[in-house]
Structure formats: C-alpha cells, structure tokens
C-alpha cells in the first residue's frame, strides 16, 4: 500500500478550539546570521504540518527553538493556546513536545532502553526505571508498530531503527506534539512508508506532528498544511490540498525547478570495470561483501539499490581504495586493481576512479579547511597543484576552486570560506565538482543528494548525467528509489552482501525493487 492511498482517509478529529502550537514573531540570530526573522505560524491540533525550505533556510533552528534547544531572541510560543516559556528541552518536554532531530540525539554506545530512559528516569536508581521502561516500550512498540530490541546497542542499529528509538523517546515522555526534522533523509522507501504509517497512527490519536522534509512527494502525501521558509522567513503557509509540488518548489527556491531528471538514452560502450567474486571482511570480522560480480560499462549509470547495511557502503569503499578486499578481483580497462591493504585511495584516483562518498561530513570534506583546500582534496598530489617538489601551488589551487565554484554555482561563491560554512547542498556540490572535474573513467557516487534541497538535487543529477554522456561509467549507490529509478540506465539490487537482482529501470518499479531489497526475487518466486 502506498502512502498516498493511506492518506485518502482524512482524520476525523474535531476542529480544536485553540491551535496546538502557535509561534508569534519568533526571531533568532546566531551572531551576525539572522536564522529566523519574525516568524509566526500556527499548527492545528491533530494535524500533520509540513515545513519545507532550502538548506539553511532556518527550519531546524525554528524547531529547535520550539523544543527549547535554542532560545529565541524575540517572540512568543503558545502551546494549546497557553503562552509558554520554553527555556530548555525540559520545559518543552513538560509542555508535551517531542523532537526527532535531523542529526539523531542518541548516545551511540548505550542500549535502546538506556537512551529512552535517559532524562526521564523514575528515581535515583536505574533498575526500576529500566524495568518500567522495558514494559512501556513493549506496549508502545505494539501500539505503533515500533518494534526495536530494547537491549540492542545503538551503533549496531540501522538508521531506520535508530529513528524509531528517537520516536519512542518522545512517546515515552508522553509527547502530544512531535517534531520530525528531515526524518526520511536517511530512510529507505520502505522504512519511510513505515514511518508515515506510524505518523498517521499518531495523528489518529490526536497528536500534532510537524514534519520537515526536502521531499515534496512526502509533503503532498501526508501533510495537512505546509509552510515554506526562505532565508529565515516564513514565506507562505498553504493547505496541502490546494498546492502542487511545482508551486512549493518555486516558493522555496524562487525559480522554477525541474522535478524530474531529463536525460537522453544511454550510449553504452565497452566494459570499463569488471568485478569478479569480490569479497570484503570488515574489522570486526563480519563479511560485508560475499562475492560480487558486476560489469560497469562506459556511458552508463549503474544504480545500486538496497537497504542500508547490505554491503553498498563496503562496495564503494573497496572500489574507492579505502578498504582492502578479502577476495576476488577487479579490473579497470583490463588492468587488475590492487585490492590489498597496500593500495590506497590516491592510487585509485590515479587509475581513473573518482569517488563521491556517502558521508560528506565524515569522508568527503575537511570541515575546517577552506573551500579551495577541499576543492582538490584527494587530488592534492596532482602535478597541476605543485609549485615544486615540496610546495603546493596555492594560486593554482584557488584558481581551480574558483572555476569550479563558477561552473557548479556553489554558493556563497567564496573559495576562502571554510567548508563548514556552506549549506549541505553546497557542500555536496563542492564534492561533486571535485570528483567530476578530475575527469575520471569511473565515478563512484554514494547518496549524492542526501539532505540536499531540491534546487541542488536538480543540479547534481544533471551533472551525473552529463558525465555519463561523455562516455564515463557511473556507479550510483542510493537509498532513494526515486533517484535510482530516475537516474540509472541499469539497476542492481544488493541484499546481504550479494547482488539479489538486476533490472532495467523501464521494466521495473518501486514495488519490485522493494521486494528485491528484502531478498525476495519475485521472478524466481514465480518460476
């Protein structure tokens, strides 16, 4: 069942006398940056209210103020019509507000139970609290389809499950109002659907939900009303039923945005990369790849779909030279790659493999380096950046960075700013620009548009297609099936470290891919 179908049945909650949330004239500045400017907003009880806006528009800031994480410089908050002072998260929790943050607020080495109980313990001793929480958790899990193993340690859980823990945390604290900041950014479609079912359940119970997302499809599918933010201001609030994705996109970005990828048919050439029996065992001794066979051909985008944790990351990292393989072979243009620990990522780049990593914060960028230093990161030993054997040619690096800024419309257009000062979308553009401009034969791309606003998504997709049209091979890993289906010329699905199926985008759909991702091959099943 798709989300849209479910939404058809509107909630039957009575019109509430006072709005659940009322924000009046909220302003917030971070030093010289005005993140929120005189924002007013109302959310009716028992509804799902969407907030959209470009990266850095101030959505997270606004919600963090409501949740007491930041304190507003000006403005008033009313909860259920009552003016409420929210100085810290404790106040917010007392006012019945729960929040699932964009970057999860979980203690990675704690168990689920410990995370849920943290801050909401019943007494000085832990044992009774934990016992009580365990019971309640089972009940909640049952009630809202939120099953998680209470004794699992967070860092062992997939993101989808981590998010459930965040939701459970809020529910455990009896939240009436639930704020979700980009909850689906890291979820697979199946997980996202599951999340929306949960949200619907909550709405049915009369809970109020605020949902921040970059995905207009989700806004259209589940919200009752939607607000658009731009550069710290609230530019519009509309009934979802009265608007369209195109209109929202235009409201957000201030221009028309193409919502689907526009590409010519692929001109597929020779096989560039041949992967045979590739195996990877990680540090903990777990086999992440269990024998992968793939052919990557010139002029095509090969999409790799799969639920996170089924080996896609390992595939990218081993091909990118970050980790060593435990078996198998890879050839590029007929030459075998060194898959041992002796090889490194620099060598791969020399051989023509560029890599846009899944996690730009952890791998792709040095946040405190300036843009121009990031702009050649990984290619810093190329001759064009050297002045002599030891010294780097800073001028060449900057000129090069400026060119890329221009070409890729990176904003703000200053190569001296630190990477941390760019929004997520622009950070991603820095990485894409760097890897694409290195003129690779093969481009490995992981989650190219995660957390990126629609304006930037359009741009990034076009760049990837453009590279393909130059006769290069692209290996695209994404959890966004929309993206996979829209961009790829051929799709493989990974499950449990193996390829569980291969399809052409024209001959498959989300449902079939979803089954393959769960390890079920519908065709074989039929046979």
């Amino acid at each position: 069942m798709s989300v849209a179908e479910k939404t058809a049945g509107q909630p039957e909650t009575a019109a509430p006398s006072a709005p659940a949330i009322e924000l009046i004239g909220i302003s917030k500045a971070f030093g010289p940056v005005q993140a929120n400017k005189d924002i007013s907003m109302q959310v009716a009880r028992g509804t799902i209210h969407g907030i959209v806006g470009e990266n850095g528009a101030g959505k997270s800031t606004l919600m963090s103020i409501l949740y007491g994480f930041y304190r507003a410089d000006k403005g008033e908050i009313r909860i259920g019509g009552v003016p409420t002072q929210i100085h810290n998260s404790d106040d917010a929790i007392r006012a019945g507000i729960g929040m699932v943050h964009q970057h999860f607020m979980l203690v990675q080495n704690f168990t689920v139970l410990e995370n849920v109980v943290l801050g909401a313990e019943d007494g000085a001793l832990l044992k009774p609290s934990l016992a009580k929480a365990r019971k309640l958790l089972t009940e909640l899990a049952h009630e809202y389809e939120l099953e998680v193993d209470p004794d699992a340690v967070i860092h062992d859980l997939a993101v989808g499950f981590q998010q459930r823990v965040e939701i459970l945390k809020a529910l455990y604290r009896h939240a009436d109002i639930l704020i979700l900041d980009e909850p689906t950014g890291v979820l697979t479609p199946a997980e996202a659907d599951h999340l929306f079912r949960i949200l619907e359940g909550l709405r049915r119970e009369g809970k109020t939900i605020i949902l921040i997302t970059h995905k207009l499809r989700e806004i259209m599918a589940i919200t009752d009303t939607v607000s658009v933010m731009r550069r710290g201001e609230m530019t519009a609030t509309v009934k979802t039923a009265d608007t369209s994705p195109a209109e929202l996109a235009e409201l957000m970005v201030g221009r028309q945005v193409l919502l689907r990828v526009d590409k010519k048919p692929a001109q597929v050439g020779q096989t560039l990369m041949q992967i045979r029996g590739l195996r990877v065992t990680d540090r903990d001794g777990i086999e992440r790849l269990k024998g992968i066979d793939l052919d990557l051909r010139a002029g095509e985008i090969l999409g790799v779909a799969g639920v996170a944790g089924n080996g896609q990351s390992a595939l990218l990292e081993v091909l990118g030279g970050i980790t060593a393989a435990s078996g198998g072979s890879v050839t590029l243009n007929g030459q075998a790659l060194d898959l041992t620990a002796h090889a490194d990522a620099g060598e791969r780049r020399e051989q023509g493999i560029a890599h846009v990593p899944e996690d730009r914060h952890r791998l792709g960028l040095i946040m405190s380096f300036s843009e121009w230093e990031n702009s050649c990161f990984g290619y810093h030993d190329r001759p064009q950046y050297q002045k002599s054997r030891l010294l780097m040619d800073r001028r060449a690096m900057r000129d090069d960075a400026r060119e890329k800024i221009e070409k890729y419309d990176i904003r703000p257009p200053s190569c001296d700013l630190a990477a941390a000062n760019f929004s997520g979308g622009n950070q991603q553009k820095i990485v894409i620009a760097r890897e694409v401009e290195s003129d690779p034969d093969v481009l490995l791309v992981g989650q190219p548009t995660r957390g990126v606003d629609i304006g930037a998504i359009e741009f990034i997709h076009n760049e990837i297609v453009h590279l393909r049209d130059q006769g290069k091979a692209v290996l695209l890993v994404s959890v966004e099936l929309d993206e996979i289906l829209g961009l790829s010329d051929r799709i493989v699905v990974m499950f449990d470290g193996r390829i569980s199926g291969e399809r052409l985008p024209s001959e498959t759909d989300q449902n079939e891919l979803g089954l393959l991702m769960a390890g079920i091959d519908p065709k074989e099943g039929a046979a």
Partner: protein
Amino acid sequence: MDLAELFQLFDSTLRNATPLLLACLAGLFSERSGIFDIGLEGKMLAAAFAAAAVAAWAAAPYVADPFPGQLSGLGLGWTAAILGVLAGIFASILMALLHGFASITLRGNQLISGVAINFLAAGATVLIGESLFSMGGQTPQLSGNARFSGLDLPLAETLGGIPILGPLYRDVISGQVILVYVALLAVPLTAWVLFNTRFGLRLRAVGENPGAVDTAGVSVVRMRYSAVLIAGILCGIAGAYLSMGTSAAGFVKDMTAGRGFIALAALIFAKWRPYPALGACLLFGLLEAIGSKYQNVDIGLFVIPVQFMQALPYILTVVILAGFIGKAIPPKAGGVPYVKER
C-alpha cells in the same frame, strides 16, 4: 622469593597504588563527563598542602601568646586529621571549580586549563606555605593526631594463622591507613554509581553525546560541574593521603612527583572503566614496588644498571600498552566544549 617477601611487595603495591587510584577515579568521573583533566597532579598537590597545613595547625597545641614563628593551633585530637582531609578536599574542589568554570562555563580549552592548574598549584602551595610557616613552603612535620596511621582490621592476628590467606589478610590487607580502604571502596562505589544510578547514566551520556542529554531535558552544565566536583573530592583525598597518610608526614613542594600523570596513564590504560582502573593502578603500584625493591640486580654476567630498574615500570607500561591493550577509545565528547551556538 618467599611468601613474606611477596606480601611485602603487595603491601607496598597497595600503598603506591592508593593515591594513583583516587586520582584515577577522579579523572574517570571528569573525563566520563567529557571534561579532560590533566590537572589531576595540581589538584592533588593543592590538596596535599591544604591537608597538611590545616592538620598541622589543628593538631598543634593552643598557645595563648605565641612568640613570632611559633605555631599556635587548635589543639584538637583525632578530629585534626579529619579537618585536614576536609581542607584538602576543599582546596582540590576550588581547583576543580576553576577548571569547571574555564572549561564548562567559558568553554575554554580543557588542556590549557589543566596545565594552568598544575602550574598554579606548584606555585601557590609554596607561596602560601612560605607565608604561613616560613619553612620554604614546607609544612611542619605532622605527628600524632595530625596524620593517619595504620589501622589494624579486626581478627588480623587471629586469622594470621591460616595458611596464605591469613598472612595476606594480616600483612597486606590489614594495617593500612584508613584512606587506603577509602580508595579501595571507592572502586565498587564508582562502578555502582556509574552503572546503576540515574546520575551514572547521565554522566556517561554527557561524555558521549551532550546533545542527547541536553535534548533529554537534562542540564549538561550541571552534570559536568557535578562530575568535576566529584573529581575534586577524590583528588582531595588523594592529596590528603600523600601528605597525611604516608611517611611524608607533611607537605614538601612538588611532592606529587608526577603521580597525577601516572594516574592519567592508568585511566587511559583502564579505558575509563572503574575495575580496570583498580587493576591498572595496582599494576603501576606493583611495578613501582618492584622497581624500588629490586634496584640492584646482579644477573651473574653483569649488574643491571639501577637506572634500568628505575625505568622498568615505565618501560613495562609501554610494552603492555603496545602488546595487550589495543586502542583506548576515550569518551566521544571528551575535551570538546559543549557549544550549541557559534
């Protein structure tokens, strides 16, 4: 080596380990909360001084009309020692609060603050000591009620007859200064607090992800101050032990002699866990005991240089660290000030 000799070694080990253990647990609380603490040394030193100074003063007889340079005290009995320990704790807490103010409230660099505290303690103890006692920064030699002496545990003699365990109880366990037992008891207590109480849960969380604690409605600042305060108390006891519970019997400048750094090493060694901390401190204590007991080893062909034996504890630490411990991963948020808005 006979049993008696072994027990002597253990006995010495226990004494060596006590200040290390207390300081190590202090560091554990602080660092588990995300506040790096290389100021253990300074806190201990300040405490050692304050404890000795106050104990000396409290135990000295009251003189109605002292001549210049004569110490007129309170003439207290055993409470003098208690007063001394409290003074030590107080001094150490002052240092800890300074560290807290710098690194929690002002979000300053925790390493710098720690270095500063070590310097400050080294300077201020002598400065104050000199102006109080005019003995070059030393305190008067402590005696009687102003210091702790060994405590004979019940049945020590009676049980002494039992083979092995008897002498172990009599010669090693029994007869230590009360602060040694305090240190030993602090280990299970710390473990219990850390893993069985609400406070412990929050403490561990705040050192891993302060954001999680904050958004759970718990004050990060308050948690960290509590942790730093506990560290102050433990370092205070450690310092008091040095000046009141050992043969030093008083304060001598720089008398901590690097023990704070060894405690830090033990903490990392123990990967910030209480029972391993006990193990690490005992190991360091044992190595030190061995290093000083067997200084002149003649292995027939040649005599091992004293210096080698003296360096042995440190060499072994390096070897053990390289060989068996693997990577010690500190609390994730350690050393980083909790900044929400930049």
